[in-house]
């Protein structure tokens, strides 16, 4: 589903954010990406979302060759991906409901159909009672959960999440992970960048460790889990 083949990313200022990364994540797989701040986690997710293009190496996600994509292909590609952004990326002048409905609106869903899906997604993250609020009136954790609801509302085939539990307490984090695991169980491929060692430990998922842009380790599941 996602295949990195010796991928490097050098930013315009010469900063080498990723170098020689190779790994593969298949459908129905749930993988964490960890590493210190600046290790290249966000860059890796941005490559998959076609926000950046690889400097070298081959990257294929969801059947799309991300080394060479047209504008229309990018737009279509992104509609198949649910993304939780590190900085939320919520629209301040739209309500929680409208924010979560945005991916459906983009795909041209009928309002009735969209309304059911939005409510269901908000229910999953426990924010059904806040649908009329505006993001500024929400706590950091609540904003984060709106971002998660928006990422899953369109039933994507890939979910990318950048520090989705950074502002959440352990219980809420566990809730969010349960939502993610539901999607995993129906074949969605999940890549979650996280610092949260305890959470990663508890979930016992595949873990890709980055260090200074290099792939330090790719730990599969512990057999006894």
């Amino acid at each position, binding site marked *: 589903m996602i295949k990195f083949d010796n991928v490097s990313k050098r930013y315009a200022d010469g900063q080498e954010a990723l170098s020689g990364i190779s790994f593969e994540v298949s459908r129905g797989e749930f993988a964490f990406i960890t590493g210190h701040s600046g290790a290249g986690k966000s860059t890796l997710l941005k490559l998959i979302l076609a926000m950046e293009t690889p400097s070298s190496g081959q990257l294929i996600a969801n059947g799309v060759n991300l080394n060479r994509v047209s504008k229309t292909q990018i*737009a279509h590609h992104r509609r198949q991906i649910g993304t939780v952004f590190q900085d939320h990326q919520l629209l301040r002048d739209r309500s929680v409901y409208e924010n979560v409905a*945005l991916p459906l609106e983009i795909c041209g869903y009928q309002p009735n159909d969209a309304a059911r899906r939005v409510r269901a997604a908000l229910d999953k993250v426990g924010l059904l009672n806040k649908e009329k609020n505006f993001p500024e009136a929400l706590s950091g954790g609540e904003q984060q959960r709106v971002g998660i609801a928006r990422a*899953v509302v369109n039933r994507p085939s890939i979910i990318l999440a950048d520090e989705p539990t950074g502002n959440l307490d352990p219980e809420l984090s566990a809730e969010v992970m349960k939502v993610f695991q539901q999607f995993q169980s129906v074949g969605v491929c999940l890549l979650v960048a996280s610092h949260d060692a305890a959470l990663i430990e508890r979930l016992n998922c595949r873990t890709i460790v980055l260090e200074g842009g290099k792939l330090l380790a790719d730990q599969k599941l512990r057999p006894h889990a």
Partner: protein
Amino acid sequence: MSATKRGNDNPNQPRLNRNTRAGQSESFGDLVKLHRRFARGSAIRLLQTPASSLVTLFVVAVALLLPALMFGLNSNLASLLAGFQDSAQITLYLQDSVSEADGQKVSDDLLTRNDIEDAYYVSPSQALDEFGASSGLEGLLIEMTANPLPGAIVLTPSDVSSSAVDELARQLQELSLVDVVQVDSLWLQRLAAISNLVNAIGSVLSVIVILGLFFVVGNTIKLAIENRKAEILVIKLLGGSDMYAARPFLYTGLLYGLGGGILATLLQGIILATFNSNLEVLMRLYQSDFQLRGFGLMSSLLVIVAGAAISWTAALMASLRHIRAIDP
């Protein structure tokens, strides 16, 4: 939501299908509803910045008004010309040797030409009577032994444009019995020339105005896009196409064009009303009840529709250009 409900052998294909299905299953009513929502959103945004929106609206209106007034003035001139068509006269003074019967025959022959609307013969004695009546010198004329006036034929050309009248006069000069051809419609020809000039100015102005509208609307859209850069960025990150992100701005352009067109027709109504009250005094001196007419329904609609079309196109070009530049 029911992620669990979805059978997922090939998560790519079903999703593609589902998205197109969602798109296609929109009924016409849903589409109308969707567009109405976008239009309302754009209108609300315009109202949120009333001052700058009004300025733009006014500029659009004035830009549309200038060529519209020109064409309006021209159509008034044209109708004025048509009203005076009768007075576009050509007088043929016949040679002294021509008898009354021959003169009448020439006149009747001329009537068969289709570039001549009307022709009648004035015999030398009729001419003398008319002259006497209009000059008040009847008494004096009775004393005269010989009639010094020639016979004449008074013509009304079918086409009063100056070139047509000139050509007709040239042809008539060739007739054997004709002595002098006198065109009485020089001022009318001047008016026609002025009408042509006004028309030409209107055309040039239209081109300038279209370019100007592109600039004004384009710039307004550019500012609006800059203000909503964050939103466009998010839309693009979620897979919205440039066209999708441009949609609200197209409505903004459309609203400016419609509003500007309506304002322009209102303004021209006010301007004409002001003009007419002054014109009335002038026209009374000329014993005419001529009045400048407004655009009329069709022309007003044309101004509004043209304004909307130009403004929408300008918005389309500007928004696609500036949205393309926003790259996540």
